[in-house]
């Protein structure tokens, strides 16, 4: 499970990994400048997609997908055990990852939080 929040003072989106997820993902938190965040979507179906190559982290198929993956030239960061609560956060080209796929407690609230914090051109 991840906790997604917005740090307005520093214009950052932060993702904190809770409990053992720190171990599975090999990360305790990610910080992304809001300007590099393109959107958030509740997407349970993404868990059925091919994950690609694991670069660092953990993959027990059907149980947990966590850490860094390379799929069709795209760099994804996963932290999902329960696909029903998977949220996709799409990032701009300049970021280390193209896409974060994280499980959150309340997908609807997380999507609304992220989308509200974005200014669209």
């Amino acid at each position: 499970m991840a906790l997604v929040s917005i740090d307005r003072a520093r214009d950052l989106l932060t993702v904190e990994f809770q409990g053992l997820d720190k171990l599975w993902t090999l990360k305790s938190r990610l910080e992304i400048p809001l300007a590099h965040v393109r959107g958030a979507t509740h997407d349970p179906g993404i868990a059925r997609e091919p994950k690609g190559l694991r670069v660092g982290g953990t993959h027990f198929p059907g149980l947990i997908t966590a850490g860094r993956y390379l799929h069709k030239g795209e760099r994804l960061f996963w932290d999902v055990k329960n696909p029903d609560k998977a949220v996709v956060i799409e990032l701009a080209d300049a970021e280390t990852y193209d896409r974060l796929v994280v499980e959150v407690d309340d997908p609807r609230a997380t999507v609304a939080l992220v989308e509200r914090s974005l200014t669209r051109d």
Partner: protein
Amino acid sequence: MGMGRPRAFDTDRAIETAATLFATHGYEGTSVDDLVTATGIHRGSLYKVFGSKRSLHLTALRNHLDHEIRPTTAALATLTDPEQVLSTAIASYDNGPAAGLLLLAAAERAPHDPEVAALVAEGVAALEDALRPSHGDAAPRLASTVLGARLRLRAGLPTASKEH
């Protein structure tokens, strides 16, 4: 969009397909799985191009305003017979391949999403402006009549536009 890899799909067609899905099933009722299946576009490409489901919905609604609502209201504004304007508006407003997209967005998304609310307001203002030449100050009230009649049509109920 970096990388320089050509897109293997037609973005405009994807937006039209998405608009039809949103208009048929609503925003919440349309999953990313539905969008992937109907457009035939890989999930990764959908995210790469549109950023999010919300962004795709906003793009589809913008597109519907520009290519469906605007041409319809422009044509309405050229008619002079008040009864004909009203009946044509009821038959053609928020119609086309994604018929009802504006109406559904107004009911489902506008209360929660200021950007959707602004697009809906734009579409309703266009209708009012189109009714003004023939109906003057009654245009806002008749715009409400048109929206109500479109809702009745969607629900399969008869409209009563000829009765007043």
